[in-house]
């Protein structure tokens, strides 16, 4: 960069003059490239690629449904899941003297239960899609739990599930079993 054209002496003078007139077309790009990469880094770090995803929910119509219009499901093809506080989830089958058990949202928790139930239903009726999951959430449950459980439905491929209100009957079922278990201990 810091070169000087020293004119050569002697008879070659004419020739050297001609050569020095040949201007170099190369421009020093270092600064520009530096700037370019700086901006790239900036935009790379500020860009967010992951757009939020949307989980579509279709709720049934809320209008008064006559009792005879309600879908009846067989007890043998049902699974009730109750979401409560502190990321605990209770599950049971049927209504009369159900065995209520609790688990969590981990991979080994509720997912295993759902998959196991799917197999049972498949054995009993030949099609695992006959399983209907009834999801009930207590008011104290976190929204995250609801999303998690809807997610489990997508992961395990449960075709039919319903979100229901948590009513007193449900709390009785849980209280009866869980309360008894606590009493035995």
């Amino acid at each position, binding site marked *: 960069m810091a070169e000087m054209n020293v004119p050569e002496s002697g008879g070659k003078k004419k020739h050297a003059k001609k050569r020095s007139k040949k201007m170099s077309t190369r421009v020093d790009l270092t600064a520009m490239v530096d700037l370019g990469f700086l*901006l790239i880094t900036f935009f790379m770090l500020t860009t967010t690629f992951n757009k*939020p*995803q949307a989980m579509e929910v279709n709720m049934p119509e809320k209008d008064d449904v006559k009792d005879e219009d309600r879908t009846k499901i067989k007890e043998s093809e049902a699974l009730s899941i109750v979401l409560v506080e502190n990321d605990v989830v209770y599950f049971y089958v049927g209504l009369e003297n159900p065995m209520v058990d609790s688990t969590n949202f981990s991979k080994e928790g509720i997912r295993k239960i759902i998959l196991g139930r799917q197999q049972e239903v498949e054995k009993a009726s030949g099609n695992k899609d006959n399983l209907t999951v009834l999801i009930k959430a207590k*008011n104290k449950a976190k929204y*995250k739990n609801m999303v998690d459980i809807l997610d489990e439905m997508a992961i395990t491929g449960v075709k039919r599930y319903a979100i229901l209100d948590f009513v007193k009957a449900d709390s009785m079922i849980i209280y009866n079993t869980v309360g008894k278990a606590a009493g035995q201990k």
Partner: protein
Amino acid sequence: MTAMCDVAFLLLTFFMLTTKFKPDEAIKVEIPASVAETKLPDKDILMLQVDKEGRVFYGIDNQGVRQTLFNKIKERHPEIAFQPQNERAFMLMDAFGVPLEELPNLLNDPKNYPQKGLSLDTTKNELGELLLFGRQSNPAVRIAIKADGNADYDKVKEVMNILQKRNINKFNLITSTRQKPKP
């Protein structure tokens, strides 16, 4: 050198064109993750946000739509004393979370006015009304619920119930992405 420069500027152009700056959000909402793969569309969104404390915020995209919405509110509620400059402030506001009667106060001081959330009071039913206005202002609008993972389900249920009362049975829950586990 030239090649490197070319690459650098190509990347630069790419990032510049794809970047969309995150708009200022009225409230902080940490969304839960799910394996859902549907992308949320960029426009025509009516977003109901629920934050950790259970405050509900209402937001609709597109300033033109917001202007129509503002005029609808004004028309329907002549008792609320809006000031002329409020319209502009409303157009610029992404989301708001105050009962309608406090709206002028919020619009006069959008930065500092404390927002305590929309009133979900069933007697007044302001959210239901706002949903109706929102859909009238932009018939193509989609309803999305963006709730904090740690919000009580209770509040979200209340919002969903109001939606269902308005015969909106199809809506989106906004989540972030999580890898789908292998079966």
